[in-house]
Each structure stands twice: as C-alpha cells, then as structure tokens.
C-alpha cells in the first residue's frame, strides 16, 4: 500500500486542474471586471498571508510587550496625551455636527459625512514596484463592497478592487490606475489625484492661472462618490506651470510601507 501511495502521480492532476482554471478564467469576468484566475489567486493567497501575518504580529507583540518593557511607560504616556487631545477635538466636532444638523443643509451633509467604518488588518502587500495593492482580512461576508473607500486616521489609502468572501484586494492611491477627486485645502481648487506607480501622486486639472504653493494640504473632495469628503490625501511637494494645467506632485499623507491596519468605509448608516 505504501509503495502504491508513493507512486501516485500528482503532477498530471495538478496540470489538469490548472488547465481548467485557465479555461474558466478566459471565459469569465466577475461583476467587478476581474478574471476568475485573479479572484482564485487572491483566495488561495489569503490563508497563507493571514498565517504569516499572524506569526509575524505575534512575534512582534511578544518582543514589544515582554522584551522591550522599557518603552511601554513612555508609549502609555504618549497615548494618554493623544487620547485626551482627541477627546477634546471630538467634543468640539460633536457640537459642530449638532449645530449643522439643525441647519437646512442637514441632509446633504449627512450624506457626505455619515458612514460606518470597519477596522481591518493588512495581511499581504505587493512589492511597491509591481502593483501597489494590498490584501485585507475582510471580504464580502464582513460587508465589504466593491469600490468601497479604504482610509486610516492619517488619510486616504485606496479603494476595494476585488473581493472574495474572506478577503479583499485594495488598490492603493499610488497605483497608476487609481484616482481620487481632491480639493486644495487653502484655496478650494478642485482636481484629480492620480497614482504614478511611484511614491507620489499627481494632481491634474488645476489651471496654470491658479496659485498652488508647496506645502499646501490636499483633501478628498467627495466628487468621485467613492472617498468621503475631507479625508487627507497628502501635501504638495512640487508645483510648476505645465502646458495647460499645473504639474503638481503630492506626498501621500499615509505611509503605505508602514501601514498595518486600515478602515473600510461601509455603506451609509440608516
């Protein structure tokens, strides 16, 4: 029996299975426009990536909580101070929201600012030079939907590109195919921020006649109906006159190489 088991060839089976997957992939695209092969690849990668992420996270927390105890008290003090600051800001914002709710533009503002957030972890990142995408550990079963915005407290991260029941692929803002409607924080000028494949974003459709200073903050405008309004996008690092529009480069507000946890914007709460 053992001799028979050793001689069972798995390679023909694997090749046949791959052939069928390719056959299906050629014919079928999901409603999101992704091929079956792409979705199957994400689904196959998810358990491996989640396991590796769990081991790395566990080892990291083991070291930070039990080996490097000296920094714990310092970190606690910093976090307490930040929490106190945020509580004060939150109280002020709650007051402003209550005031705005009484105004005539309540419905419009409600649509723009009321949404639920789902905290998720990043379990896999593509190499920055390859695809500028990450995989998060939440999928359709958790309520994630196609084109949902992904943000952090620091700023906009990207949008949901592909979904499986247990995980989702996020297209980062730095991806060449990514774009977001943006507004300049100081002047209110509206444009479109696009990924360049590198670490910076390009903002287009700002006329040469308008002044955009280096260091200006850029926020989401909400015009694309994907990203909520007023989410930080980044800061202008270069602004020069172009042929028709200004050539503006923006340093993203989020450090994509270090971010580990993100928030998925869920459909508007009732």
């Amino acid at each position, binding site marked *: *029996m053992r001799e028979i088991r050793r001689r*069972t060839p798995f390679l023909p089976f694997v090749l046949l*299975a791959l052939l*069928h*997957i390719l056959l*299906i992939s050629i014919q*079928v*695209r999901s409603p999101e426009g992704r091929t079956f092969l792409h*979705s199957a690849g994400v689904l196959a990668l998810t358990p491996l990536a989640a396991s590796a992420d769990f081991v790395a996270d566990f080892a990291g927390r083991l070291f930070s909580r039990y080996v490097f105890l000296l920094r714990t008290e310092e970190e606690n003090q910093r976090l307490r101070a930040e929490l106190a600051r945020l509580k004060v800001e939150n109280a002020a914002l709650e007051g402003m929201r209550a005031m705005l709710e009484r105004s005539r533009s309540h419905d419009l503002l409600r649509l723009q600012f009321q949404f639920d957030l789902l905290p998720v972890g990043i379990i896999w990142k593509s190499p920055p030079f390859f695809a500028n995408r990450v995989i998060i550990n939440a999928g359709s079963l958790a309520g994630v939907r196609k084109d949902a915005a992904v943000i952090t407290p620091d700023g906009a991260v990207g949008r949901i590109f592909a979904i*499986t029941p247990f995980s989702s692929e996020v297209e980062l803002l730095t991806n060449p195919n990514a774009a977001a409607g943006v507004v300049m924080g100081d002047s209110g000028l509206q444009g479109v921020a696009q990924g360049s494949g590198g670490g910076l974003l390009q903002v287009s459709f700002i006329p040469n006649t308008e002044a955009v200073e280096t260091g200006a903050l850029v926020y989401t405008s909400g015009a694309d109906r994907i990203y909520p309004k007023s989410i930080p996008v980044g800061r202008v690092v270069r602004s020069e006159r172009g042929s028709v529009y200004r050539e503006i480069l923006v340093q993203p507000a989020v450090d994509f190489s270090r971010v580990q946890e993100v928030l998925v914007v869920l459909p508007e709460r009732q």
Partner: protein
Amino acid sequence: MLLLALAIAAIQLLLARYLPVALYVDLSLVFTLYIGWRSTPVRGAVCGSVLGILQDAVYRTVIGFNGLSKTVLGFFAAYLSQWVSLEGFAFRIAALVILAMLDNGLVGGLQTLIGEPAQESFWAQALARSLLTGVAGELIFRFYDRFKMPPKDFQRL
C-alpha cells in the same frame, strides 16, 4: 473512453430535450467514479475532465466548472479507493451521495467565486440531485459490473 464520453453527452442532450428531470442524475459523475474506482487516479482525473467538460457544454454553463469538479473528484475518489474497499451496496450509495454533494458544493463555490451567488434553494436541489445520483449510480454500477473492467493495473496510466 471517448466513445463512452460521447454516448453520455448524447444521452444527456436527449434527456435535456425530452426529460429534463432525469438530468438530476449526474451521469458524468457516476461514470467518472466508476472508472476511477476501477482504475488509477490519473485515469479518474482525465475521465472526469473529459466528461465534466462535455457536461458543461450540454448544460450550457461556463466550460470548465464541472470539468474541474469532476477532475478533482475523479482523482481523489480513485486515490482513496486504494485504502477503502467500495464493494458494499450501502457503502457505495453513501459514497456516491457524499461525492455528489461535494461535486455540487464545488460547482456552487466556483459560481460564487465569479460573482454569481447560489439561489436560495441551491442546497435543497443539491441534496435531491445527490440522493438520486447515489441510487441511480449504484444501479448503473451493478449493470456495468456485468461487463467488469480488468482489475486495477497500476503500471498503466
């Protein structure tokens, strides 16, 4: 095997035209398992692949759905048969029902993966198909045993 595959495809086409309810019996799966259990895992996989693709063509679904599920089941059913004897009447029916449920689950899972979630009555229909396939499959097995295939020859693929 090619003649068998064409014969099964022809039968399924006729049934689809004149007696659609008989399509509840998954003939492709029955013959995949029959050949796999009396042959080698690779032959079971190849047979499942061919019969599954023909079934997809008859059922007008995505080519490859049933091909992939029958390939997997044909291979692993034949592989497991090296450890477990499959000659008992009740045991064979139970095995056919379980494998038919797995087949339906695989195809349903593939459909969900491409963004076409299963209908609400999917599992009820799958159970009905599996039970019918189990019973009909055992009868077909007994009929075919009259023309028994040679014992397993593991030197040939």
